[in-house]
C-alpha cells in the first residue's frame, strides 16, 4: 500500500504528463509524443490508485472486469469507426465522461468514507461544494455532448435552436442549479 504522500507525488507526475500531452498536441511534430505522454499519465494514475487502496480481494476482480468491458468497447469503436466520423465520435465519447463524473459524485455522496470526506450525512463542506459542482458540470457535459453528437451526425439540424424567452430560461436554470446546490449545503450543515 502506497502512503498518501507518495501517491500524491505520483498523481502530480501524471498531472504534469497530461499537461505535456496537451502541449505536444499543439504541433504536428510533437503530436505523437504528446499522445504517448497522455497514455503514460493515465497508466500511472490508474496503477497508483490501485496500489494506494491496496485492496486486491473480490472487489479488485470486479473492478478489473468492468475496466476490461469498457476498454474493449472503446477499442472496438476506435478501430471500427470511419475517419470521417471522428468529430461526432469524440463528442459521443465526451458525453460518457460527463455521465461518469455524475456517477462518481453520487458514489462519493453515498459513501464518503471511501473518499476520506467524512461520514454519510456529515460530509465536509468543501467536499460537498466540490461534489455538487462536479455533478452539475458532469450533467451539463453529458447532455451538451449528446446534442453535439446528434448535430454532427446530422440527426439533428445544425442550425441553432432558439425560442422566445430562451435566455431568461437559461438564467433561471443556472440560478436553480445554484439555489439547489446551496440549499443542499445549508441542509447538510444545519
Amino acid at each position: 500500500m502506497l502512503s498518501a504522500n507518495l501517491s500524491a507525488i505520483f498523481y502530480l507526475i501524471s498531472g504534469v504528463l497530461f499537461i505535456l500531452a496537451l502541449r505536444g498536441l499543439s504541433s504536428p511534430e510533437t503530436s505523437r509524443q504528446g499522445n504517448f505522454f497522455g497514455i503514460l499519465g493515465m497508466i500511472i494514475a490508474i496503477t497508483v490508485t490501485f496500489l494506494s487502496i491496496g485492496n486486491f480481494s473480490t472487489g479488485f476482480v470486479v473492478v478489473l472486469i468492468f475496466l476490461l468491458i469498457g476498454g474493449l468497447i472503446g477499442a472496438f469503436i476506435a478501430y471500427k469507426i470511419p475517419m470521417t466520423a471522428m468529430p461526432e465520435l469524440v463528442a459521443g465519447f465526451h458525453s460518457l465522461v460527463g455521465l461518469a463524473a455524475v456517477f462518481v459524485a453520487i458514489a462519493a455522496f453515498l459513501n464518503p468514507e471511501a473518499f476520506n470526506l467524512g461520514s454519510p450525512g456529515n460530509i465536509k463542506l468543501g467536499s460537498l461544494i466540490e461534489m455538487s459542482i462536479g455533478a452539475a458540470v458532469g450533467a451539463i457535459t453529458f447532455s451538451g455532448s449528446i446534442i453535439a453528437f446528434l448535430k454532427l451526425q446530422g440527426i439533428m439540424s445544425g442550425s441553432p435552436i432558439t425560442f422566445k424567452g430562451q435566455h431568461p430560461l437559461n438564467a433561471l436554470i443556472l440560478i436553480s442549479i445554484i439555489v439547489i446546490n446551496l440549499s443542499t449545503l445549508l441542509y447538510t450543515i444545519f
Partner: protein
Amino acid sequence: MEIDPFIFRLSIFILSIFIGYYVVWSVTPSLHTPLMSVTNAISSVIIVGAIIAGLAGNSDTIFNTSSIFGFLAISLAAINIFGGFLVTQRMLAMYKKKKKDK
C-alpha cells in the same frame, strides 16, 4: 495557522484553468480534432474516483449502491480512455501519411 485543504484544491483548480488556456491557445487548426480527442481521453482520469468508489466495499458489500455507481463509471471512463487514445493515434498516423505524400 493551518490552511484548509479546500483552499489548496481551489488554488490547483484555478492555476489549472490558466495552464489549459495557454497550452491550447496556439494550436494548428488541422490538429483541433486530435487535440479534442486527447483532452477528452485525459478527462477520463475521473476513473480514479470511480475505482476508489468501486473498491470501497469489503467482501460482503461489494455491490452496494455506491460501488455499483463506481463500477458503471469505471466502464464509461474506460471506453473513453481506450477509445480516446486509440482514435487519436489513428488520426495522427493519418496526418503523418498525408505529410509524406506531399
